[in-house]
């Protein structure tokens, strides 16, 4: 007997018991649907976060003072936090190879006043390359220039929120002078609105001024809180990082090239995205495994129903044996029946999962991403479930004695 006949026989037998077959596929449908939906949620969240990070610039590198001690609550010597100096910025700016833009950062928080209105915000001291580096468009007016930086000019760019707070919505503040901690800053441009970032910070509540101005006139400090750089491209992030480390070690007279005695740390956005990506993969995996258990239970359900089915169809098995089916052929028939049930369930489960993912994910504002491998995998799992849980009933059927089976009442 050839396999095509066997498959036909099995499908006929499954079709002859529609209700029972449907009930046993139900578990698989729900199981596979859950696995697909969970995968979709995990991967959708991952993509969403990645997309958000890459709008911030996936080629960005951040240099922070102090050694990278990793997580932990050890309090550091304050002097260790003052290692990034003007000389570092200068050497990073010169002879750039893989580094495209450089901007040091100094921050000061406080009240900003215009006329009779005031607001609390943060002033960021940056270089003139900052808007280009962050791919942040200046919507009204212009950005400040290298000359402004050199002169420590009292000029600034403002975010939308600051404009709304001080001037009212829709006003044109270019050319107006605001005061931050009594220092007058002339507005040269307004930054395009970016909205809130994924951890809920209003990215438009900022004032960007030349770092020289903020260092000298506002914060009165001679060190940077960080230096931001961007690599020529995301792929060259690692090379740019090496370039930065090399220059800074030279500046700081650190001979150890292993990085253990560095008094600064460099983090790249690419690295961060990778870390977040692998975290989300882990989350996806855990969700998938949780959903996978429902597949296991569905498999046990199939085994139950197949065992009942074998007992109920003892007479049919006896007849098949009497007309020439060998035990092996009978066992293959029942195995195929189990696989037909589980694979049919798998197909509908994939459809259910896709449907659920396409309806639910947009509701929570995430993209619906069902990886192809997840579909292929759940399909293979279905076949495996059919084989594993169909085996016991199939063996039971194969071992029947045709004489007893055919007279079974």
């Amino acid at each position: 007997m050839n396999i095509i006949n066997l498959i036909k026989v099995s499908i006929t037998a499954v079709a002859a018991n529609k209700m029972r077959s449907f009930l046993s596929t139900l578990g698989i449908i729900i199981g596979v649907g859950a696995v697909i939906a969970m995968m979709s949620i995990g991967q959708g969240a991952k993509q969403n976060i990645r997309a958000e990070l890459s709008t911030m610039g996936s080629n960005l590198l951040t240099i922070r003072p102090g050694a990278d001690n990793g997580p932990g609550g050890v309090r550091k010597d304050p002097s260790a936090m003052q290692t990034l100096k003007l000389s570092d910025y200068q050497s990073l700016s010169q002879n750039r190879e893989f580094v495209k833009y450089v901007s040091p950062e100094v921050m000061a928080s406080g009240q900003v006043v215009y006329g009779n209105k005031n607001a609390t915000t943060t002033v960021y001291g940056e270089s003139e390359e900052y808007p280009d580096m962050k791919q942040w468009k200046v919507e009204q007016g212009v950005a400040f220039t290298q000359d402004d930086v050199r002169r420590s000019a009292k000029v600034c760019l403002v975010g939308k929120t600051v404009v709304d707070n001080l001037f009212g919505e829709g006003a044109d503040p270019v050319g107006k002078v605001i005061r931050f901690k009594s220092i007058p800053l002339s507005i040269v441009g307004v930054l395009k609105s970016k909205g809130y970032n994924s951890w809920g910070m209003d990215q438009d509540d900022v004032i960007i001024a030349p770092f020289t101005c903020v260092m000298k006139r506002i914060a009165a400090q001679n060190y940077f809180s960080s230096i931001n750089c961007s690599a020529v491209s995301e792929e060259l992030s690692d090379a740019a990082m090496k370039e930065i480390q090399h220059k800074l070690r030279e500046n700081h007279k650190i001979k150890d090239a292993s990085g253990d005695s560095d008094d600064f740390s460099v983090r790249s956005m690419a690295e961060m995205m990778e870390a977040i990506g692998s975290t989300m993969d882990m989350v996806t995996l855990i969700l998938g495994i949780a959903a996978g258990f429902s597949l296991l239970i569905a498999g046990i359900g199939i085994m139950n129903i197949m065992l009942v089915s074998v007992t109920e169809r003892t007479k049919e098995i006896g007849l098949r044996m009497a007309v020439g089916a060998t035990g092996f052929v009978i066992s293959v028939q029942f195995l195929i029946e189990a696989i037909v049930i589980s694979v049919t369930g798998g197909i509908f489960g994939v459809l259910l999962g896709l449907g659920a993912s396409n309806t639910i994910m947009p509701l929570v504002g995430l993209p619906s991403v069902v990886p192809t491998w997840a579909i292929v995998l759940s399909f293979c799992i279905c076949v495996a479930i059919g084989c594993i849980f169909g085996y016991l009933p199939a063996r039971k059927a194969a071992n029947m004695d045709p004489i007893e089976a055919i007279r079974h009442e």
Partner: protein
Amino acid sequence: MEEDRKVVIELQDVKRYFKVGSETVKALRGVSFKIHEGEFVTIQGTSGSGKSTLLNQLGCLDTPTSGEYFLDGVAVRKMSKNQRAHLRNQKIGFVFQNYNLLANTTAVENVELPLMYNSKYSARQRREAAVKALQAVGLGDRLNHKSNQMSGGQMQRVAIARALVNDPTILLADEATGNLDTRTSFEMLVLFQKLHAEGHTIIFVTHNPEIAEYASRNINLRDGMIKEDTVNTNIKSAAEALAALPLPQDD
């Protein structure tokens, strides 16, 4: 009827013992006979006479404890389970008391069943053979009726068609009229006589002595031995008996 005709069944001192607990039940205590091609043999006996055990032997569902059984020249005793399954598929057509049709399955699909286990048949050949067999039993117009839409007589005809479809060496009927009313039983006998006339070898196991009158030979079992083996020289016509039956009355 001695004979230049081919011997299709030969039993040589076949014994079949079963162990039940510490006791040995001797179901067949040494049975020998030959059946030639084209015979219509009834095997009779009361319950416990060993006729079911003999049927299992003849049908290659079981093997003798001792003695030899040759089916169409093939020695069955030493065959494995799988070899016997193939032998049944090729050489034996079973008709059971309870029809044993597959539920929710059409007549033609039921008849195709034995051929499904024979890789020599293509789907088209299978269908053709099944249709031919159904026509032979007078169900050419009910090919696609499902088993639960048919009467007992029709179901038994489907079962007979299924037994004929592989063109078997012997047709083995086990109480084939046991579940049918008198009229339908006679219709079945008419069919069996017709098949006999066409040259089929039929072995009909029954406890109903009446049926022996329509067969060409009768083997009577008692306590696992042959009590009688007689040739029926005066074969009654089932068709005449059917015609003589009072018409069914509507009341």
